[in-house]
């Protein structure tokens, strides 16, 4: 019964992150699209944790761990694209021109 409850929670989180796809489709800027990808990544971590608890399988928790570790990589790559030549730091200009 508790396992079913965890799967129900997983279903609810899945539907809620599906809503974020609307922002990915519409989002006027690239930052908005990237943020919805980030949200789905973090939702994926939550869903993996819920499925791991529902089935009491520690291996699926490892999947959640790897997802959590690599979640922000795409956001990092995106942030690089607004800097010249894709090689700068968005905060670097602040240091030069306070």
């Amino acid at each position, binding site marked *: 019964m508790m396992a079913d409850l965890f799967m129900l929670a997983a279903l609810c989180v899945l539907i809620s992150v599906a809503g974020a796809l609307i922002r*990915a489709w519409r989002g006027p800027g690239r930052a908005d*699209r990237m943020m919805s*990808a980030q949200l789905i*990544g973090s939702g994926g971590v939550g869903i993996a944790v819920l499925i791991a608890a529902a089935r009491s399988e520690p291996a699926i928790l*490892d*999947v959640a761990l*790897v997802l959590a570790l690599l979640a922000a990589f795409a956001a*990092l790559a995106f942030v690089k*694209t607004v800097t010249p030549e894709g090689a700068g730091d968005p905060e670097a200009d602040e240091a030069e021109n306070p």
Partner: protein
Amino acid sequence: MSLAFDLALCALILGTAGLAVAGGNLFGSVVFYIVYGVLIALAWVSLGAADVALAEAAIGAGVTGVLLIGAWQGMKDAGGLEAEITKSLPVRVLAGLGAAALGALVGFAILSLPGHDGLTGPVAENQPALDLGNPVTAVLLSFRAYDTLLETLVLTAALAAVWSLTPARFWGGIPGPKHITRPDGVMASFGRLLPPLGLLVAIYLVWAGADQPGGAFQAGTVLAAVWILIVLAGLRDEPRLSSLVLRLIVIAGPLVFLGAGLAGALAGLALGYPEGHARTLILIIEYALTLSIAATLALLIAGPARRAP
């Protein structure tokens, strides 16, 4: 309840795939493809295939994002984003019908597979001889070890193919631009805090791969992602591609694998493991493969050399 979850996941996967192909905005399509990677990893989790889910989470959700966004950046710099490539309507309808027909064919083929346990029985019978707890590792590195060996060589060949795109004046040089970071900023701190954790997770994955889901490929991907982070955060520059040490690391995994096979040949069983030494040899091969896969993947993402040596 699991059925409801699976159905919702299937609908989401199909929807995301459609949106990735149909969108007019190229960056939006890239984002949808990354989302698709995360959803496929969840699909593997739901099917109970934790090893594949680990690989998909590492590659589809992490590394592919960096690769595609880097490609998008390259297109933007070369001015390719303004070019409008629209095919005529009949061509697009034909392509859509062809893709739908292929998808229906694959779906029909999978649904008409006879329902039986597959190879679970034979694998379970022969696994105790190897002293490994994880049946996936047993299949990958023993029963079908020849396939895995060839796959690692394919990775190395892919790297050679990427390097062949280097302009002559940059041969053997350094890939990627020189990354500048504010030394006390968020990006540099990220690049200092995450790699130790990533290294720990990678070593855990390859060590645990012998007896529970994990393995060389997953660990190698996490290590490659950690290296990419260090380079993007400007804390280290990429090595020169002509460096001998680098090339030795890339080739080390396949060489150790071949060496293990030759050792078996000396013991009288060509490309086989000597009796009783299987687990030790498999573990040595896995650790060497982890290093090689990490180096190869990181270099594949870095691309051909862009700065002279």
